[in-house]
């Protein structure tokens, strides 16, 4: 059992109380927890930043941050895939969890707002990639970065609320995402010059940058 596992019990029990009293909140959580709404929204924001500047220099800066975000998403996904092979613990709703109250509560919460995912929960993949993107964009555009941070937080919380993850899964995902983004933006990408510049030149020649 991971540390702070009791928090998952509280939050999934809360999901059932909400279902009895204000089911519309769970409908909203069901939308937020989706594998499509927030990921597609974040990618559309990145696409808007790629093309949406009038000034060519500002556009190029923005495109570099989007490139950093794309690389950070790729690297952090690789880290998550490697960690997933270790199989630290099952999902909270898995009957293999020793605490019966916990897995039953998480099972019901997952039934209400999500579905029973089959892959390992540690670390939370959604939190990892969304926080990686938010951090990279934050370095270049505070407003857009803040919007992505809010979306990322909503997605991560919804997955915790829906009994898909323990709190530690979510926290680890955020740490991995943010750390990867900082390393990519501040260390890796500046040292790989002129590769990013050449990539931008090729994209410009193809009318996509």
């Amino acid at each position, binding site marked *: 059992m991971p540390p702070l596992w009791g928090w998952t019990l509280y939050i999934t029990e809360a999901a059932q109380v909400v279902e009895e009293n204000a089911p519309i909140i769970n409908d909203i959580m069901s939308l937020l927890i989706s*594998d499509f709404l927030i990921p597609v929204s974040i990618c559309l924001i990145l696409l808007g930043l790629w093309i949406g500047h009038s000034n060519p220099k500002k556009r190029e800066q923005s495109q570099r941050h989007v490139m950093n975000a794309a690389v950070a998403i790729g690297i952090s996904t690789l880290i998550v895939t490697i960690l997933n092979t270790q199989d630290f613990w099952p999902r909270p709703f898995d009957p293999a969890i020793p605490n019966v109250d916990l897995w039953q509560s998480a099972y019901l919460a997952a039934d209400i707002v999500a*579905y029973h995912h089959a892959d390992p929960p540690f670390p939370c993949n959604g939190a990892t990639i969304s926080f990686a993107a938010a951090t990279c964009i934050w370095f270049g555009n505070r407003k857009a970065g803040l919007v992505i941070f809010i979306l990322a937080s909503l997605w991560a919380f919804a997955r915790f609320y829906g009994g898909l993850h323990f709190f530690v899964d979510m926290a680890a995902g955020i740490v991995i995402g943010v750390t990867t983004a900082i390393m990519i933006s501040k260390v890796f990408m500046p040292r790989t010059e002129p590769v990013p510049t050449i990539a931008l030149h090729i994209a410009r020649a193809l009318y996509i940058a």
Partner: protein
Amino acid sequence: MGVDYIILVFITSIGLYQIATIPAGLKGLWFFKWRAVQYAFGIIAIVGAFTWFFLDEDRNYQHTIEGAQQLGLFLGCIIAAYVFTGIVSSVIRANVATRPKEPVKGKQHDLGVETLKKTTLLGGILSSLRHEREK
């Protein structure tokens, strides 16, 4: 699910291109002469596509689109939507001509989408092929 996801990304991307190219001034990608219509079209495309996607059926089930596949499909769809936008706007020529009065100055690998402030996507490609740009 896969086809629905492709439709979602394709339509929302078209809507996003229409909105994002307004502040960027990339008139070569515009479908309309009027900014208000352009904004309205973009918003309707994005909100409409998301509304259709989530109201059409429950999307919270064990689907077959993995994270990497989702990203790959997204990239493919935004490129397809960009090509579609470029072709449609080149045919409509709402704000700029395919052949501008003055040749585009500079090399394409330096200018990029900046070219689309003065001409359409097809116009830019044709001028590159004809080597009629000023150095």
